[in-house]
């Protein structure tokens, strides 16, 4: 990401954890309904929101529900009634929401939810793993992955703009502990700035007793198919909306974003591809590799749904070796980001590049810059990728 210096008077700098950065973003988005249910490591988000509500700073209706399933059900109902809504969850919580996630997307309810990546049981764990959110990839939610507290704050606000323009729900994903509980200096925009970026949510269609109409009645096969195809079309529009929102945000704050971010990749023969917190580490590793004469670059996948396949293929076509690092393992297959990257390159006839799939940092094991350098050197030493994913333990 290349910072652009612009005049940004309406921001103040705060020392925030990733969780509190998300909470401040939610506050700035002015949601009217906030159904919440606690789960580690997301709980500080709702605690901060409750504190802000208690102080009178957050005007929305905070509903403490009895499960994540109910939290999402309340989000959907409120959203269909025309309210802007926010919630946050993690791990077992998002797993419990699964049924309602499909419903939210089919209902075209632009709910925005933060998900803090955390391992799924069993066994029990509290550390980062991307499987909880990646397992929801087919629910019809927009998914954005963040590498820092600042990005989390900025992305929550962009997610509202995107979701409400294409009428699909959006998930902003951070990472247990490394992002959620780590303090960083964060630029927090003022309400006037946010108001210029994010107008009030005023849907053309909403549930209103004064103007009765129904939503979600039983459909015919043709009606159901039409609804699904409309969602697919809306995902296509979301691709553009994410970049539009990221660009506008950059103009207002000096921090532009895109669905795919590139770092020193233009003349690279090896491109690291990753998402979330490892991206920051990989940026450091690229610099070290460049210092040792290796033409390495980084492609950070910020947007996972809709998957920016065409842009990724365009970006990676001159690269010889594409090295995908996954902090997840789809058991029986391998890294999920690697699957998606392979499919995207194949679909766009980018057959010249070899895609190497590495699985690292599972269950929250730390991925250091040295480890990423080691992964890149391993890929450089191989002629072509093995059929199986390469585990960091084998290096």
């Amino acid at each position, binding site marked *: 990401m290349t910072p652009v210096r612009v005049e940004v008077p309406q921001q103040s700098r705060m020392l925030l954890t990733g969780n509190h950065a998300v909470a401040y973003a939610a506050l700035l988005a002015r949601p009217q309904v906030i159904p919440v249910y606690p789960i580690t490591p997301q709980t500080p988000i709702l605690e901060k929101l409750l504190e802000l509500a208690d102080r009178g700073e957050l005007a929305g209706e905070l509903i403490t529900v009895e499960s994540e399933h109910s939290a999402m059900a309340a989000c959907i109902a409120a959203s269909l009634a025309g309210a802007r809504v926010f919630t946050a969850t993690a791990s077992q919580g998002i797993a419990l929401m699964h049924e309602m996630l499909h419903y939210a997307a089919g209902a075209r309810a632009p709910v925005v939810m933060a998900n803090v990546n955390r391992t799924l049981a069993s066994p029990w764990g509290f550390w980062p793993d991307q499987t909880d959110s990646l397992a929801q990839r087919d629910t019809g939610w927009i998914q954005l992955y963040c590498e820092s507290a600042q990005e989390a704050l900025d992305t929550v606000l962009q997610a509202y703009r995107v979701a409400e323009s294409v009428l699909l729900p959006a998930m902003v994903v951070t990472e247990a502990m490394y992002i959620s509980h780590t303090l960083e200096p964060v630029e927090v925009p003022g309400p006037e700035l946010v108001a210029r970026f994010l107008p009030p949510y005023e849907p053309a269609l909403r549930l209103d007793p004064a103007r009765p*109409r129904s939503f979600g009645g039983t459909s015919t096969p043709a009606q159901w198919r039409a609804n699904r195809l409309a969602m697919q079309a809306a995902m296509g529009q979301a691709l553009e909306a994410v970049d539009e929102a990221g660009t506008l945000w950059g103009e207002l704050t000096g921090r532009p974003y895109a669905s795919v971010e590139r770092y020193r990749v233009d003349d690279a023969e090896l491109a690291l591809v990753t998402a979330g917190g490892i991206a920051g580490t990989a940026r450091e590793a690229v610099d070290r590799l460049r210092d040792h004469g290796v033409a390495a670059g980084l492609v950070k996948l910020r947007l996972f749904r809709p998957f920016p396949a065409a842009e990724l293929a365009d970006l990676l076509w001159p690269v010889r070796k594409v090295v995908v690092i996954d902090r997840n393992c789809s058991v029986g297959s391998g890294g999920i980001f690697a699957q998606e990257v392979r499919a995207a390159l194949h679909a766009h006839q980018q057959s010249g590049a070899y895609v190497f799939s590495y699985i690292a940092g599972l269950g929250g094991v730390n991925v250091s810059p040295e480890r990423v350098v080691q992964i890149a050197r391993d890929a450089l030493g191989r002629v072509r990728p093995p059929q199986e994913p390469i585990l960091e333990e084998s290096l």
Partner: protein
Amino acid sequence: MSVDLGSARPLGWSEPGRTTLEIKTGGWRTRRPAYVEATAPCRAACPAGEPIARWIERARLGDHAGAWALIREENPFPAITGRVCAHPCESACNRGQYDGAVAINGLERFIGDWGLEHGTPARPAITRAECVAVVGSGPAGLACTYHLSRLGYRVHLFEAEHELGGLLRYGIPEYRLPRAVLTREIEFAIAPDVEVFTGRRLGEDLSWSTLAAYDAAFLATGATLPMRLRVPGEEARGTGHGLTFLRHVNAGAVPSLGRRLVVVGGGSTAMDVARSARRLGVPSVTVLALEAREDMPAQPEEVAEALSEGVEIVNGVGVFSFLEDSGGVSGVVARPARLGRDDAGAVLPLFEPGASLTVEADGVLVSVGQRADLSRLPAGVLCDSGLIVVNGGGATPTRHVFAGGDAASNQRTVTHAIGAGTRAARSIHAALSGSTSAADPAPGAWALPAPEHVVGFSEINVHYFRRVRRARRRQRPPDQRLRSFVETAGGFDEETAAAEMARCFTCGRCVGCDNCYIFCPDMAVSRVDGGYRISTDHCKGCGLCIEECPRGSLHMVSER
């Protein structure tokens, strides 16, 4: 943001004005919920049949006059029963299984006292040609008189004593039932057109041929003959009967009792005798009861109050003999015993091994029950086991002769007598007019009457009721109580009464709480006519409304 989504626009919304009401989910149903007016357990247990939950509901809504009128549909004496009823309603109250029964008896007194101060008793007109004789003005006779005049009959009320009230006046001490309350509530109950004849005792001043001339007669002559112990020395000077003693005290006399009194018996009368004696200054009063403390027929409150007033109670003993000294009683010999009964049902101590107990006494008052004096009845009135034989409505086998109260029942409480008088009045009306009185009005056309169904605790959804402590009546301190016959128990103030009324579950009766309306997943419930209607086009028969109904006023009805 206004973005033209084109083919990506949301679908799944109906045209404006078209709603889910179009989706007739009712076709899935095999059973449906129905609003009912079922019977609350308090009412099922009430010997006088009061619609308790309904009058509490009226009063809770601030309509004290309506509550008073509802009680008096059944019982003309709420201020009296609100003081002396043994309140079986509270034992049956569903709230007893949650956080303590509703203090119904105290609320009844609250409404009864409100009525005495603010109420205007209806003065029914005589609309019927028949005239009915009521013999006896205890609670049964008074209740029968009250209901007969409400039904339009001319009534002649005969009383052997000089004042009306029977046992209420001559048997219950003033500290439990103030005379002013008694007198005023009787005045309210007796319509001006009722002709009252006092000092007319059946068989002496009132002949059977006189009664036979009436269109119907109701016999409520009570149980006035004291039971005896049949123990040597029972006739010694200084011995007597508790009820006779109470009659004297209640008439204003102060009998001489000595300094050490023994009271024999474990019922309410024994407690009344012992506590009255303490108020008259007797320093030592000992009650000898056959029953264990927790099995005494007296109310637990009465027992506790007697103990706090310095009465000593010895349980599990029977009187074996009396001790005499120069013709006067000097003590009682008691032995461990348990309760038995002879063939006629009279109480009989069954002595058990153990050391005997001698209690020195200057006086002994026996309070082991009363029996009806049936000797003055004509041979035509059928009696069995010491009682006039009646059916459930109070009719004797003799045409147009009815009976009730202690003369016809062994359930000898004021409230049972009131219920018997009420039922007899309705039976007399049926016999004379051929018509039966109308059932309770349903809350509205939207609810079905289900009087045979008594609501159980399992039908109450207690999640909708916060636990609240039951209200307690204030009691005057024992040392103050012993100085006079001023009423012992205080009544509820407005605030306490309102809080206690709010505790009533209102079992089996819709109060319009909206739970069914809110929870119905098909929005099949709509508000109508002060109540609700369930659309059979949309109700799937899921039963959620029944589950969420706090008070069992929705029942499932099979449509198969």
